[in-house]
């Protein structure tokens, strides 16, 4: 074996661990769903565990890859080589390389089991508990009423939580499987109809965190998103109190017209949507709209909530979210006689803008 070959082998051995650094650099913690920017204890423990295993894997890759590289360089056939010795094995060696990986595995198994239990057992079972219900293709969030009267305060696609506090989350689904995932706060847990699941989350810093359904759930799976708004306890309490209040009857004539359309007439929105405070709007199929104008986004976190987008969403939901159930079920899209005019849409949007 000549020296230049030995040098090239050493070079390779030195290069391999360095290769691991761009590996991590290729992931950007700035990205809104990056798992590398953990802001809650659950996500942090998962990230720490990941780093631990990642470096163990890099170690194994460097050692095994280095030896493999060395073997292929060292033992390549040269012209006139005789047959090599026909060795059939080496028992101590084989026992050794059976035990070695087992030891590496013990190193990652212990923290794994500890983290599994930490992540699934709530540190504070009496803390705020929110019910998350999956629907095709949006998330329903149910809070306990601030008055403690046992009622639920219902909202959709925008989860407010108090910062720095443990929040318990019960998960269920109304239709197919979904998965609840906010990468910066916690790894996912599935929503299985009929099997209530549990997780806990906590945000250490105030801010908005993006989440997304992570279990394939049908046509609009890609557009089933939501946001978590972590805010101070006082802001959160104020928000919850506001959400718990029923909607006010509109005073503006256009909005009144919109309400009439919403609760009857051609649109019949009430049959799927709830507006607390309205005697008629008690539908359960679609998101609760009692305070829809307070939300930052509509269509399950797909577009910003503003007048123009609301218009487009009512006029042509398919253009925003293909497959949406509203387009499938609402007669205004299939029955030409009930198609909404521009004026109708304007009235509905005006009504929705009063729901705050």
């Amino acid at each position, binding site marked *: 074996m000549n020296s230049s070959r030995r040098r090239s082998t050493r070079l390779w051995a030195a290069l391999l661990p360095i290769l691991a650094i761009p590996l991590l650099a290729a992931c950007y913690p700035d990205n809104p769903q990056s798992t590398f920017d953990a802001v809650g204890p659950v996500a942090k423990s998962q990230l720490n565990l990941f780093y631990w295993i990642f470096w163990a894997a890099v170690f194994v890759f460097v050692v095994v890859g280095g030896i493999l590289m060395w073997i292929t360089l060292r033992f390549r056939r040269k012209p006139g080589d005789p047959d090599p010795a026909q060795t059939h094995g080496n028992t101590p060696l084989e026992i050794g390389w059976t035990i070695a990986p087992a030891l590496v595995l013990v190193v990652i198994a212990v923290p794994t089991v500890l*983290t599994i239990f930490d992540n699934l057992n709530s540190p504070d079972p009496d803390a705020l508990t929110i019910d998350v219900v999956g629907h095709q293709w949006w998330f329903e969030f149910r809070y306990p009423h601030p008055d403690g009267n046992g009622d639920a305060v219902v909202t959709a696609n925008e989860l407010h939580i108090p910062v720095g506090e443990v929040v318990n989350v019960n998960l269920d689904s109304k239709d197919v499987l979904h998965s609840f995932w906010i990468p910066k706060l916690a790894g996912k847990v599935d929503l299985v109809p*009929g099997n209530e699941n549990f997780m806990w989350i906590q945000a250490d810093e105030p801010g908005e965190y993006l989440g997304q359904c992570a279990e394939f759930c049908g046509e609009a799976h890609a557009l089933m998103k939501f946001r978590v708004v972590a805010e101070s306890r006082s802001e959160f309490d104020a928000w919850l109190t506001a959400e718990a209040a029923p909607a006010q009857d509109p005073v503006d004539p256009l909005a009144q017209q919109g309400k009439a359309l919403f609760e009857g007439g051609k649109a019949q929105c009430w049959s799927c949507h709830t507006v607390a405070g309205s005697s008629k709007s008690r539908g359960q199929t679609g998101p609760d709209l009692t305070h829809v104008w307070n939300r930052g986004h509509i269509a399950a976190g797909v577009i910003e909530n503003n007048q123009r987008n609301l218009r487009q969403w009512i006029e042509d939901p398919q253009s925003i979210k293909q497959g949406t159930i509203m387009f499938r079920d609402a007669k205004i899209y299939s029955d030409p006689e009930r198609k909404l005019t521009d004026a109708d849409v304007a009235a509905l949007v005006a009504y929705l803008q009063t729901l705050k």
Partner: protein
Amino acid sequence: MTTLSIPVPSRPVHPTGVWGWITTIDHKRIGILYGVTAFIMFITGGLEALYMRAQLARPDQELVSPEVFNQLFTMHATTMIFLAIMPMGAAFFNYIIPLQIGARDVAFPRLNAFSYWTFLGGALILKLSWFFGGAPNAGWFGYAPITGIQYNPGHGIDFWAMSLQVLGIASLAAAFNFIVTIINMRAPGMSLMRMPLFTWMTLITSFLLVLAFPVITVALIELMFDRFFGMNFFVPAKGANPLLWQHLFWIFGHPEVYILILPAMGIVSEIIPTFSKKPLFGYPVVVLSGAVIGFMGWMVWSHHMFTVGLGPVANSVFALTTMAIAVPTGVKIFNWMGTMWGGSISFKTPMLFALGFIWLFIIGGLSGVMHSSAASDAQQQDTYFVVAHIHYVLFGGSIMALLAGTYYWFPKVTGRMMNETLGKINFWLVFISMNITFFPMHFIGLDGMPRRIYRYSSEYGWDFWNLVASIGAFALAFAILVFMINVIRSAMKGEKASADPWDGRTLEWSIPSPTPEYNFAQIPTVRGIDPFWAQKRERVPVAPVAGGSGEDDAHSIHLPQPSYWPFLASIGLFIGAYGLVYYQSIVGMTAGILGLALTIVSVYAWSFEPVNDPEEEH
């Protein structure tokens, strides 16, 4: 000799041309049929993948609708797993196993033909759904309840389920056949612990198939009963638990993963000793680790379900069993390295692919260990990180090994060598573009991109690596095109191959290339592992007997005769399964009944048909 008065129509004697292929029961021809069909299916699955990568190349593209995208990923995975990798494995089982154990055919040649034609029927049922009735759209895993009639009223799921049932029959028949063949038809002296590694891995794979497929069969029956007859297996409103499907699916599905990878490991375990000129290092340990992998494959299924809420105890147990399975896998890699150590390694194309397999499989194995850690897996489950992992083990693992096997055994099949220069170009193209395609998926997965989404918007920061992956995918397609060109070109005018072009170690290299119809003019006697190497080096005077035409010898060898009953039985299954999808219409029901009747009649007639016609015997 028979007193039965069943009117058996006259039997094909020495058919030629297309009819010859249809009625063939020669394991070599069936192997070729499997290989060619599986490769065509591989191309269709690849095109489906390219379509998806085109859609995902840029953010917010609208090349395909979400509905079509869902069909694409469902079809891509189902095709690659059931119609490409599994039957490619079957192609090698068919062609190579009898040669490696010194047999003239498999134990049940007609059952073997039936397996192939039934596989083809199942493949057609699935693929034709693109044109009639719509392709399945619920993922290859088909998680309940989205496959239920309420959420999926079209026929796509019916085609998917029927196709998998038919493919299951084909796989089971083949697995029974190979178990019996390997256990019962070994040449004298070839004890179990003298069998070549590929034969060993085939035997383990066959056992896995026999035990795993009935589970998915039951799951699919339950799904079909729900859809057809309004039963309640997966209806949550009636108290059903959708997780039952996941348990049944993965109790099948995880052994299935080893069904895909063990034959690949077998192929690599043949190539590395040959091109290192050394026997496999620690043969008993490699065999044992294969068996341990096959056994432990039954104890890890819930690692696919870490996020469904099984609780911390179950998650911990399955995390530990999954980590444990890394030990026998690691042992295999170390033994391959031990084989090369001190060897005389020649870097011919098959060896390059085998080495590529080891490198990519190490990466896929390490990311697999990352997934085994249930807590950290909660961030990776159902993201592109998993997509990267499965492609490192299924493309980097299985496909690389199958390509290696093709380059390795091509001379034995065709009598011609594959072009070495093109082969090397082929290898580097595949190896590099494979990494360009799949490595970035690790990054976007950890950056929070879920799987199975048909579009993403720019604000998420996934644009760049998605574009890279898409470019890689098209480069990979080009690499496969180079492979096709090499195969076709070499088959037509490649250099003529000798009987033993690689200085091989196992019995298949002791007979002429291409393999004569009767395989072995004289059944060899085996005295150890690597019997042919021993013969050559110790100058034991057995060597390939009939070097030339072998006509004289062939005359005295009884080969099973062709038959058209297996083919007809498969046609019946195809028609029957296709008809049953439309069971609600008179035509569909009639076709279903007639098809199954044809199968029953054919199987009945087949059981009366002697292996050889008495009149044909000498």
